[in-house]
């Protein structure tokens, strides 16, 4: 098998996911593009309402229709031949909901772990039942004995003690950390190429969080998965990611590799975000807060979406026209008029 680290797994191109509600249309994701590669992690940072979770749910096609709908763009999923050449590509965004093609992609090509493993696992099925179901559906021809053996092996791999016994436990019998481990085992059950992790450690205690973060990284090295790691926690994303995309109100405002974006942030929102967060080892100077609040999702912007809170705004320009996401130096893209 060709172990190309930079093999393109998913190419998201100008994705638009809108929610049509009584109060108006929420453009939760409004023209977002990015690539996910084998063996690499893309970190997605943003505050509530920035569209980071809807982006990932669009890739998995978990957005409820109605009210949500993918209104534009493509989500290209690539398959490769043994020799590393492209076998085919499928546009996930164009697949019919609940279609066979879509079901074949979930878990096999793209798997997802969520913030709260308690609500994302069934309380009336054992851990084994749930992992078994995923494998039975997505790995045709697999036998019960094989799924049982594989489940126990996965539970051992993700560090669940007494894995044979725990396979028959219910999710409420596990602690938060153990539940997230079981969720990860389930996500890995069909050997996905891409793992989407949507705030997987937000509900966990910090000492348990560090265990789960290390586990995800070990598993990535072992299985050469691509990871899309979504979090509001800068430090977690910094530790986990090769590249980072910062989102604000449905758009990517800045993209670069992890070192570049932390050492040399360009967008005023990214800069302000970096300065507004208390750290364990940085300066103890007064934090710079970002003024104002995140605008209502129904608000119709006539220019840059960060205009109202931006300290570097150019009157007459930023409020009247829309900045594009442009590459201002190799590998570093930013959506801001200051760099045009």
């Amino acid at each position, binding site marked *: 098998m060709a172990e190309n680290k930079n093999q393109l797994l998913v190419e998201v191109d100008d994705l638009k996911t809108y929610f049509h509600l009584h109060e108006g249309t929420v453009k939760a994701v409004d023209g977002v593009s990015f690539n996910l590669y084998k063996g690499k992690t893309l970190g997605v940072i943003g505050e509530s309402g920035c569209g980071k979770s809807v982006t990932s749910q669009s890739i998995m096609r978990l957005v409820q229709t109605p009210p949500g709908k993918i209104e534009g763009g493509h989500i290209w999923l690539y398959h490769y031949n043994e020799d590393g050449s492209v076998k085919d590509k499928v546009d996930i965004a164009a697949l019919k909901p609940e279609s066979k093609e879509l079901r074949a992609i979930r878990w096999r090509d793209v798997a997802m772990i969520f913030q709260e493993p308690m609500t994302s696992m069934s309380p009336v099925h054992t851990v084994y039942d749930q992992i078994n179901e995923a494998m039975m559906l997505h790995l045709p021809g697999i036998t019960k004995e094989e799924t049982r053996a594989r489940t126990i092996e996965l539970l051992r791999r993700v560090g669940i003690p007494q894995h044979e016994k725990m396979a028959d436990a219910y999710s409420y019998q596990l602690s938060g950390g153990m539940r997230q481990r079981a969720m990860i085992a389930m996500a890995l059950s069909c050997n996905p190429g891409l793992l989407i992790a949507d705030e997987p450690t937000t509900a966990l205690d910090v000492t*348990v969080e560090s265990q789960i973060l290390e586990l995800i990284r070990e598993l990535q090295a072992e299985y050469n998965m691509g990871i899309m790691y979504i979090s*509001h926690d800068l430090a977690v994303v910094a*530790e986990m990611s090769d590249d980072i995309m910062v989102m604000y109100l449905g758009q990517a405002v800045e993209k670069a590799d992890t070192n570049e974006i932390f050492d040399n942030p360009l967008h005023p929102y990214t800069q302000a975000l*970096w300065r*507004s967060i208390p750290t*364990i080892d940085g300066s103890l100077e007064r934090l710079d*807060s*970002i*003024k104002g609040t995140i605008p209502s999702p129904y608000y119709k912007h006539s220019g840059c979406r960060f205009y109202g809170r931006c300290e570097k705004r150019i009157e007459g320009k930023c409020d009247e026209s829309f900045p594009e996401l442009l590459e201002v130096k190799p590998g570093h893209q930013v959506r801001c008029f200051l760099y045009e």
Partner: protein
Amino acid sequence: MNSQDIILDVKGLKKYFPLKSGGLFGKVQGYIKAVDDVTFYVKRGETIGVVGESGCGKTTLGRCISLLYEPTAGDVKVYLDEGVLDVGNMNKEETKKFRRNVQMIFQDPYASLNPRMTVLNIVGESLLVNDVAKGDEMEQMVGQIVQKVGLKVEHLRRYPHSFSGGQRQRIGIARALVINPQLVVADEPVSALDVSIQAQILNQLKDLQKDFGLSYMFVSHNMSVIRYMSDRIMVMYAGKLVEMAPREVLLNHPRHPYTELLLSAVPRVSRRGSFRLVTPGEPPDLLNLPQGCVFNPRCKYAKEVCKEVAPSLVQVGPDHFVRCHTLDEFELKGI
């Protein structure tokens, strides 16, 4: 210590929750020791940070201090400008005085404000209840404090639902401060807020502390936030206070293995891509606490004695207290 310098003195505080078997007359089968023998003090005008993982008792401790829970045992004294209050033995008058001077800010700004009351009534309620002011005078006082916390007078007639999370937290802060308290217990006041709003609230709390000479007991699970806010830090584990020290001492020269573990686990922007020390294990089940030191099953320094005897809290330096058997035997790593 001179009692002039301290506002709160707590000795041997315990809060046990009984576990009952089912039914109205269920028998008590045991106790959850949410807070177990905690001794500490808060100096006037300082912020003491209380940090720990879920189930460590930090919230219960805060609630005991603000008398939302009645402690099971312990000696709590509050040294106010107008005299000392012995919290275990207060008459009605003294309880009222206590409540005026010790206020609380809550974590969830959505659950802690009554949706059917206007901002004026939410913030003004304690002025009414304590016979401080009513009518126009109350409105004027509420207007002042509301502006002080960064809201507008126009907001007074609105209901909580029309505010964002950050603004609601400001209402909660205004409600705590309007009565001019001396000690404020803040329980995870920024945990429910977006990162760009957190800094606004933290800075606001610091400014108000300076303006009003407040003492804070700041409870949080987030070590980075605790570091930013606190003069001294208390680390709790399974209901016990395991270490208490001035901020820089605790962060740079921790003496308890759990403090070391907690510090190493905090995610850091500066650690990009590098691996960290990971210790197995999870916070213990409070129903089934280990023998001896509560931390011993997760402790990489544990000795035989740790599995048998619970260590007691000893002073190891100025304002520095630790509960550990292996003191001085190992060099622990700070941040």
